[in-house]
């Protein structure tokens, strides 16, 4: 049985990817899951369900907002949109993540010493 941490990659990663995806266009849950899966070339094995608690957290923080609507396949779906706060938060998180990544990369790079 996988633990939640494994599913979530590292804390906040899933949220970051959701926000990034929603920045491009508002989406409903299923489309969001498909999009993330596709864009990562199926490299990230994310349980589709884990999307929803993350979305609830983002709703609570008011980083996204949701509205019921009708999808292209004529289905009643809840469509998520990025809020202004969400956009700002995403920028901040991405720059933080890049710094972290840079650090990790340097440490992992073959040493010249």
């Amino acid at each position, binding site marked *: 049985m996988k633990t939640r941490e494994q599913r979530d990659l590292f804390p906040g990663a899933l949220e970051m990817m959701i926000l990034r995806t929603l920045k491009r266009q508002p989406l409903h*849950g299923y489309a969001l899951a498909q999009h993330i899966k596709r864009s990562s070339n199926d490299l990230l094995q994310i349980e*589709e*369900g884990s999307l929803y*608690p993350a*979305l609830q957290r983002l709703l*609570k923080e008011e980083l996204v907002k*949701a509205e019921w609507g009708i999808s292209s*396949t004529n289905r009643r779906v*809840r469509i998520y949109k990025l809020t202004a706060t969400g956009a700002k938060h995403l920028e901040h998180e991405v720059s933080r993540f890049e710094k972290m990544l840079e650090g990790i990369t340097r440490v992992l790079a073959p040493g010249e010493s």
Partner: protein
Amino acid sequence: MSWLKQLFLRRRMYADLSEEIHQHIEEKIEELVAGGMSRKEAIAAARCAFGNVTLTEEDGRNAWGWRTVEELLGDVRYGLRALRHNPMFTAVALLTIAIGIGANTAVFSVVNSVLLKPLNYPNAEQLVSLHQIAPGAPGLADFESGLHLSPSMYFTYAEHNRTFQSLGVWDTGTASVTGLAEPEQVRTVEVSDGVLQALDVAPAVGRWLSEADQVPRGPQRVMVSYGYWQRRFGGDRTVVGRNITVDARPREIVGVTQKGFRLVDTDFDVIVPLAFERRNLILAGFGFEGLARLKPGATIAEANADLTRMLPIWMDSWTNGPGTNPHFYETWKITPMIRPLKREVVGNVSDVLWVVMGTIGLVMLVACANVTNLLLVRIESRQQELAVRAALGAGWGRMVRGLLVESVMLGLVGGALGAAFAYGGVRLLLAIGPANLPRLSEISLDARTLGFTVLLAVLSGLLLGLMPALKYAGPRASLALRSGGRAASASRERHRARSILVVGQVAMALVLLVSAGLMIRTFQALRTVEPGFADGPHLQLARISIPEAMVADPERVLRIQDEILKKLAAIPGVKSTGLVSEMPMEGFDSAWDCIFAQDKTYPDNVMAPLRLYKNISPGFLETAGTRLIAGREFTWNEVYGLRPVVMISENLAREIWGTPSAALGKQLREFSSMPWHEVIGVIQDVRERGVQDPAPEIVYWPPMMEYLFGSKAAQTLRTETFVIQSERAGTESFLNEVRQAVWSVNSNLPLASVRTMQGVYDKSVARTSFTLVMLGIAGVMALLLGMIGIYGVISYTVSQRKREIGIRLALGAQGADVVQMVLRQGAKMALGGVAIGIGAALGLTPLMRSLLFGVTAQDPRTFAGVAALLIVVALLACYIPARRATRVDPLVALRYE
């Protein structure tokens, strides 16, 4: 979205989440089917890709952080169901808690309104009473009231102070108002300029009395109280500017006070300006209460220093007449002891109220112990349920919380009921209106009181639940499942909690009963004190005042009084009548004189010790039942003939001349220009200030004499108490005849303070009887609750030990042995409780020392009596279950083995 709004919308949000997840899976299935999968496979694949739906939903909901709140709500629902399931238990527990909380809330509302709330004036913390003491003044230093202010002191303080915004003196009195309807005796307060300004409460109608109204022989003006305005003028606003006749003198009404306005704690009908004649003032005349408002930021210590600074100015500015030394008062050591006005209002009631509050708090604890006992019994029968919950994975923290929520709910529902009880109780208290309780009109259930109730409800709820919760919901809860509900033989351990509770109850009951016992002993001691009058229920009193504007000539006044006495004596059933300036304990302003004895020398020959003085008519001693120790009393011939005769109290005779008989024939006077008066009689000591206070030394003058108020011309006391001894005292028909008799002499004379001497006496011991009643109620409640506690525990033990007792009986034990065994268990608890209780009581009763009289706080007889009573009651409570134990049929008991 606010947190609260989210909370209320959460059901819809949860529904949205479920719907969304459902749609997600459907969409996936559809896509997979469209991709060529069979529907069955598609469902399985979609589910697999999604993960655990229930867990996901739960995680999603938890994201909102309401879990704690929801679990609590669940606990509340569960608790309510559990309480509903057991209506008998719930009713008993709720009633016990409601009575406890109700009593506490009611008493707290009194404590809050009387002691905690600021007085009903703006910025009341700046208000002070100008209390001062004079330890060097002989005869005066003993009294709580200290040295009052003289008018000259008032002028000095008002004009030279640096620490007060405004300052004034006041006094209470009575006056007759005529010309409205029947002649009426009204309660007055006389105020100097500065008093109303200091209190700073705007009038309801018209204006305050101002400095312009304080001019002697100027325009005569008054204010009336709101109550008097409603009663006599029906609340007519045009009353301002109208005249009323006060003491036979017309006066213009300038204003009406606010509803509920009191001067310190004095309720009154009319405010009259004092209008001092400044030219005639001397140093002496210490008859007025001082009241002032401090400047912002000024402290009481600064104000005391300010008054101290002004005392020499006062002595330099005024005199007591030619040939006297104004700085004589330095020997009195006058010391300002300014007190917050609130202390003056509350007086010595605060001791009583705190003792009652503590007592009622203890009763609450005893009640809580009983309910805890009930909870313990009940939870034992619920052990299975708890074990099942534990087995299903409920954490013990969660279970403890559940049980605590349940008991806190008991507390809260009980508290709500209790608040209703308290409301009724306070209404009742206001209806009874106990004498001597200050600020009675301000007592109400306010926000602070209700806050106290809620706090008490929650605390007692937690207290109730704590012991059962920790004991049974603890980590060992699952063990109960194994014993399968089969009563394991009652182990010592299982009953320890309940036994401890009972021991505590007995201990607290002992403390309460000892306090009540000490009050009973106090009351007994008070009753054995000889007050200086006899047969109070058969002494009828009435005050009658003959104002100067009605009858100018003093001798004429005495003739009228004499005639009234004769008419009263002619009423059927009247044994005798008499006249006195004031009966003991009536609480009017007492009068003081410096008294010189001819054969003694005094420092400076100016000032002798101050003595209380009274005026009595012939026949008074016999009427009041006050004994003559030596000599004889006045005759009417001596009174009318202005003979220089005087009587004194026994203790004064002993102080000056050694024995009562030695005093006869000796000479007394008040000041040098007064002729010497011969002592013709010595009267028994009288408890003038109430039975608790020692009898003061008293000089008895005739009702008419020269130099009565300093000037040579003969004067009469115009306001006197008429005393009538009759078996019919206090009955309505008798009072009617008394009124008719008075009005047959002069129909313009109102009767005031109509009451029996017993009423006066009861009022003077009201503080003690109030405390006695309250502690008595508390003690009896604690005793009953403790008895129920012991009974409950013993019967429960007996029912649990049925099998063991059956075996004992089968093995040949006698009934008496079994009774003894059960009683021994009860006695052990009772003795433990008594021992602890005695220790606690020894520590606590000194707190009520100020309420006791003639008994020490550690009175061994009271302690021993209460301890014996408690042990007997405890054994009685054990006896019934013990008897029942002997009737256990061994066969029945063992059959289930």
